[in-house]
Each structure stands twice: as C-alpha cells, then as structure tokens.
C-alpha cells in the first residue's frame, strides 16, 4: 500500500523539480536586471576574461629602465625547462659588461607553462605574462624570439587583439 502511494505521488521527483524550479526562477527574474548579477558564466569574447595575478601565460623577456635586455645568458632557464623550449645564444654587445643574448628562441608549441624558467632566473629577466589567447594560424608563428620575428618576446601576442569581438 505504502509502495503504491509512493508510485502514485512522486515526491522524490517533485523535490528535484523544486530545486530546478528555484534556480530557474532565480535566473529568470534577475537575468535582465543589472542590480543582481546572477550570471555564473561570463560572456567571454565580448567580456574580457580576467585572470588571477599569479596566472602563468606566455614567456616574456624583460627590459630594464634604459631599454636594455635584462637577460645575462646564465642558461639557467634553458637547463631547467622540462620540455627544452628555450635556446639561448651567448654574445657580446658594445658598452655592456654582462653577456648579451644574441638569440633567445622560444618554441611555444612545446611549452607547458610550468614557470620553472622564471623560478630559476636569478636576474628577474623573464616573466610569464597574463596572456592566454596564444593560438595562431601557422606553425611558424609559434617560434618566438627577439626582434625581427613575427611574434617577438617583448610584445603581447598579436592574436589577443582580435579576441574581443567589438567589430
């Protein structure tokens, strides 16, 4: 008899429907009113996505106040990289005591964004910036380096500009 009643009155299903209904009402009555933002998801390409301060994005070479490259070619980042994406060629520049990187190649397609390179750097000359829109159309664009390449390591990624759908 009890079982029959339970089959007749689906209280468990009603309980579930009440929860879904509650959430539906919450969204339905607040969605278009700016007062109570109830959006869990953000409308990403239209709204710029925010990342946390420690976010690990693309590797970037830093320059000091005089516009000099801070890297002194100690090769610590090259050694510690688990996927061997960094290649540095040591060189000299006139008027500079410390060694100067003639080439600083970075193969982004293999990079796993672990930040070990930044951790190993004793001169604070590299950081991982906050960029996450790193897709490109060609494989060549993933080979980053110093000036002269399509993506150099001082400027932000060119793809980032197009991600905000304002046109």
């Amino acid at each position, binding site marked *: 008899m009890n079982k029959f009643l339970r089959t007749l009155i*689906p209280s468990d299903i009603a309980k*579930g429907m009440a929860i879904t209904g509650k959430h539906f009402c919450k969204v339905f009555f607040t969605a278009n009113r700016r007062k109570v933002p109830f959006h869990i998801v953000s409308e990403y390409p239209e709204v710029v996505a925010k990342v946390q301060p*420690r976010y690990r994005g693309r590797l970037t070479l830093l320059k000091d106040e005089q516009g000099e490259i801070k890297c002194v070619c100690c090769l610590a980042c090259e050694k510690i990289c*688990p996927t061997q994406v960094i290649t540095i060629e040591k060189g000299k520049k006139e008027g500079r005591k410390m060694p100067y990187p003639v080439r600083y190649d970075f193969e982004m397609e293999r990079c796993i964004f672990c930040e070990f390179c930044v951790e190993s750097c004793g001169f604070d000359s590299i950081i991982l910036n906050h960029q996450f829109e790193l897709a490109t159309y060609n494989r060549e664009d993933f080979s980053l380096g110093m000036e002269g390449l399509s993506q150099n390591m001082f400027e932000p990624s060119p793809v980032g500009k197009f991600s905000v759908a304002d046109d």
Partner: protein
Amino acid sequence: MFKNEEMEINLGPQHPSTHGVLRVKLRLDGETITHCKPVIGYLHRGVEKICENQTFFQGQVWTDRMDYCSAVANNLGWAEANEKLFGITVPRRAQYIRTLLNEFNRLASHLIWLATHALDIGAMTVFLYAFREREDILDMNEAFCGSRLTTTAFRIGGLREDLPPGFEKMARKFLAKFPTCLEEYENLLSENRIWKKRTVGVAMLSAEDAIALGVTGPVLRAAGVPYDIRKAFPYAAYAEMDFEVPTQTAADTYARYLVRMAEMRQSARIIQQCLDGLPEGPVMAKIPKILKPEVNEVYHATEAPKGEIGYYLVGEKGSINPYRFHVRAPGFINLQSLPKMAEGGLIADIVAAIGTLDIVLGEIDR
C-alpha cells in the same frame, strides 16, 4: 527456432560515457554481458620513461598530466616521495597548505565524478550544478599557483610561494556555501527513484574481491573496508586533523555514491580545520641546489581522490635523474575490477560501472 548466438561489440574508444579513450570489448547474450575486457593504451605517453630522463625537480610537471582531474594530489605524492628520498623535512605551514589544497582538489575531483557519473546515468541537472562549484576551486588553484588544471603546485621541500592575499577569503566563502550545494545534489539524487533504480544493486564488488584485486579508494570503502591512507599512514598534516573515514557495506554503485558524498563533507571539515589552525612560519625548507639521492629506493603512497597513488623511485648515487620511476595509479588498478562488476549484468549497467570507478584515462595509460 531462434539460435542463441553471442554478439561481440566494442564500447568506445570514442564513447562519451567511457570517460576518455577506454575501449571495452563486450560479448553479449541478448542484453546480458557474458564477457568483458577493457582495452587501454590509447593515451600512452610514457610518463615514467620521460621522468627517468629528467631531473627530480623537473619530474613534477609530468605528474600533473597523469590524472588531470586531481593534479594537486599527484603533485603531493611526487613531492613527498622525493622528500623521503632526499631526507627533507617540510615546514609545518607548508604541510598545512598542502593538506588544504589537496582536500580542495579532492572536492574538485569528486565533483567532476558526480557530474559525469550522473550525466552518464541520465541526471543532467547535477552536471551543471557540480561544475559550478568546481569552477570556484579551479579559481583558487589559479590564485595559488597560476594554473587551473596542470597545477605544478608544490616543490620538493615545501612550496614555491605562500598563499596569495585573498585566498583565505575565497576559501571561507566557498566553505560557507558548499554544504547547501551538497544538500542540493543529495535532494536531486539520493531519493530519486530513477537514480536508485540505476544504481542500487548494480555493479557489485564484494570486499574479498576488492582486496584480491587491489582496489583502493571509495570503491573499497563502499565494500565496508575502512582503509584510508590518510588515517592508516598519515602524511602531510593529516595526523593533526580530525575526520572520519566514511564506509558503507552494500558494495554497489549507490553505496559508492554515498561514500563519496560523505567524503566531500569530511573534506570540507578538514579544510575548515586547516584554515583555522594555519601556523605561521616559512613554507620552504633549506634544500641543496642540486638534489642527489642518499637512499636507494623509495615507495610513497598517498590517498588520491581515486585511491592509493604510489610513487616508486629508485635513485642512483651521484645521478640527478631517477634510475627508475614507477607510478601505482589508482585508476589503472581499479579498472581491473570492471569485468568482475560488469559480467552477468545488463549492458546498460556497464555505463554505471565505468562511472562509479571514477577513472581518468590519462592516469591509466600514463
């Protein structure tokens, strides 16, 4: 007359309910499974071999990529195995933060299990609600170590950095709302007749079979064996925490659901204790720049969300690479119980059996 012929079918490797690239060879008699054989290896990357060619410091990034739903738990096992090998004591604050993050990770992993398991069986709503809460935990991961999934959270000897400002606020905010969220899931599922019909008495695995197969984690505890490495062999700061090991005796899919739900409550309790009793002090021990092992071999087991994850490391004297590295992956060993669970059952129930094991193929194939 009808001829009773067995039919062979393949489930997967591209099937959404196999949670990745798992292929299951099934032989069916009508709708009953007579023979079941999981075929793995589609995601093999050779993590163990890669780690043998890298230094002890570098190896951690590969453990992220094994069980990508619980990367922090993998990192913790790796870091502690290495500390055992080098004889390093970790500062107390670092131990607490490790415990804190590991428990958050357990919540995230159980939430993704609940979401996908319920989705497989047909409860769509829970999927969205569970992912909503998991998002907050991933945000906390991002705030702490800069990455959401492949965390690389710990270092040999402690942590890279202390907790970021605002982390405690985020964590407390999450803890305040999480019990109501859990109640919501339980209201949706626990008494639901469809959920109960799909799970009660489905995919049974008795305690004897579970122990014989080496199954660990919630699957073992749902069979009534209260084995939890956090209690049995305490590591990190678990010895100072007050928590229970939830068990059930029914040994079916529904019991495993109940165990995992109770475990989430206990995890929230541990996080609360970690936040309240967070000691001051440094987060990194003093370690030499180049790590060279003193002991020959080490096996360290920790309780990952899926079961016992063990790291076996053999060090060579004077070498900076491990001579041999092996992972006892919980998913790999739990998967071996799938034939036992599925054979004799209906074909529709194998989806529940795969879901209840909570496997991640990245870890099984490695």
